[in-house]
């Protein structure tokens, strides 16, 4: 059975049936099987917690990027108001890039939310099945001399085993997806820290200079603020607004 789930469930089913075969005291084995199922349920809960953690990290990053967008927008305006059109253009290019990243992050957060929902639903289902197994187990133990009962519990164990295997697969897929996102998020973070998105904007060398100039602009601007405003007011009409539009291109 080449299905994705088939391979995994085969492994787990084999383990469970081997367990049952070996048993000298079926009652004991059933309890052990039940214990294993409960452990699996704990693992699922951990898996869901991991997805939630990744989601939160992406959400935080998304917030940071939003701030970055605002900051870059402000810097562009500042640069423009000081007649530094090239600098303003650079800032706006980065702003666009940050916005693109932001969209992709939002999509990923949405995907993780779906994953989380699916895992939570499946966990509830598995919990119900394990509860059924526990009930059946007690019935079997009470009348375990019957050979038919042995067959029945073996079937039930296989059914639960398959359910666990399938959930295991869902978790594995969620983890892989999360890993990819984490790696990507890490890369964005590094770029952010360096203040460069040069791989896409192809701004070339001189990145650091531009960044330095941009940050100097920000700090120096406070001092020059009054002056800039005055200038804008003085040159109103032909001043700020048209220049901004130009920079937006």
């Amino acid at each position, binding site marked *: 059975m080449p299905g994705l789930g088939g391979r995994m469930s085969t492994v787990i089913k084999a383990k469970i049936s081997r367990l049952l075969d070996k048993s000298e005291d079926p009652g004991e084995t059933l309890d052990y099987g039940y214990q294993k199922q409960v452990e699996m349920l704990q693992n699922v809960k951990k898996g869901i917690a991991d997805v939630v953690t990744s989601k939160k990290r992406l959400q935080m990053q998304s917030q940071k990027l939003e701030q970055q967008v605002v900051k870059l927008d402000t810097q562009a305006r500042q640069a423009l108001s000081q007649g530094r059109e090239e600098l303003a253009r650079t800032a706006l290019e980065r702003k666009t890039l940050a916005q693109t990243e932001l969209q992709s992050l939002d999509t990923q957060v949405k995907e993780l939310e779906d994953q989380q929902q699916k895992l939570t639903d499946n966990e509830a*289902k598995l919990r119900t099945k394990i509860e059924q197994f526990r009930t059946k187990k007690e019935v079997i133990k009470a009348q375990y001399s019957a050979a038919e009962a042995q067959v029945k519990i073996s079937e039930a164990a296989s059914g639960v085993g398959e359910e666990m295997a399938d959930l295991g697969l869902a978790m594995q897929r969620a983890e892989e997806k999360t890993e990819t996102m984490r790696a990507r998020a890490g890369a964005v973070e590094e770029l952010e820290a360096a203040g460069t998105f040069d791989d896409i904007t192809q701004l070339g060398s001189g990145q650091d200079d531009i960044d330095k100039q941009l940050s100097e602009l920000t700090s120096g601007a406070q001092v020059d603020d009054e002056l800039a405003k005055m200038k804008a007011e003085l040159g109103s009409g032909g001043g700020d607004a048209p220049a901004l539009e130009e920079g937006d291109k």
Partner: protein
Amino acid sequence: MIVRVSGEGQFRLPDEDAERLNELDNAAVAAAEAGDEARFKDLWAQMLEVVAADGNSLGDDELVESDIILPPRDITFAEAQGEFTGEGLIPD
């Protein structure tokens, strides 16, 4: 016949559907091996449709093994190329 769609639970289908599913599966394997993504996606959708049309969802209190396990609905073509190969869904 019990069919599981990975990640979605189990369904009870009439036994007659086994043949149809196996045919679709064989064709899907061929498409995956040939690298024909469009054809694969079409066949995969048809398989899910058989389950949707004829299948009744099993209750959570039923503890039974599946006769057929289908991969997750959102399986990618790359995954399918790794998994949808070899023998049919129904083992000999």
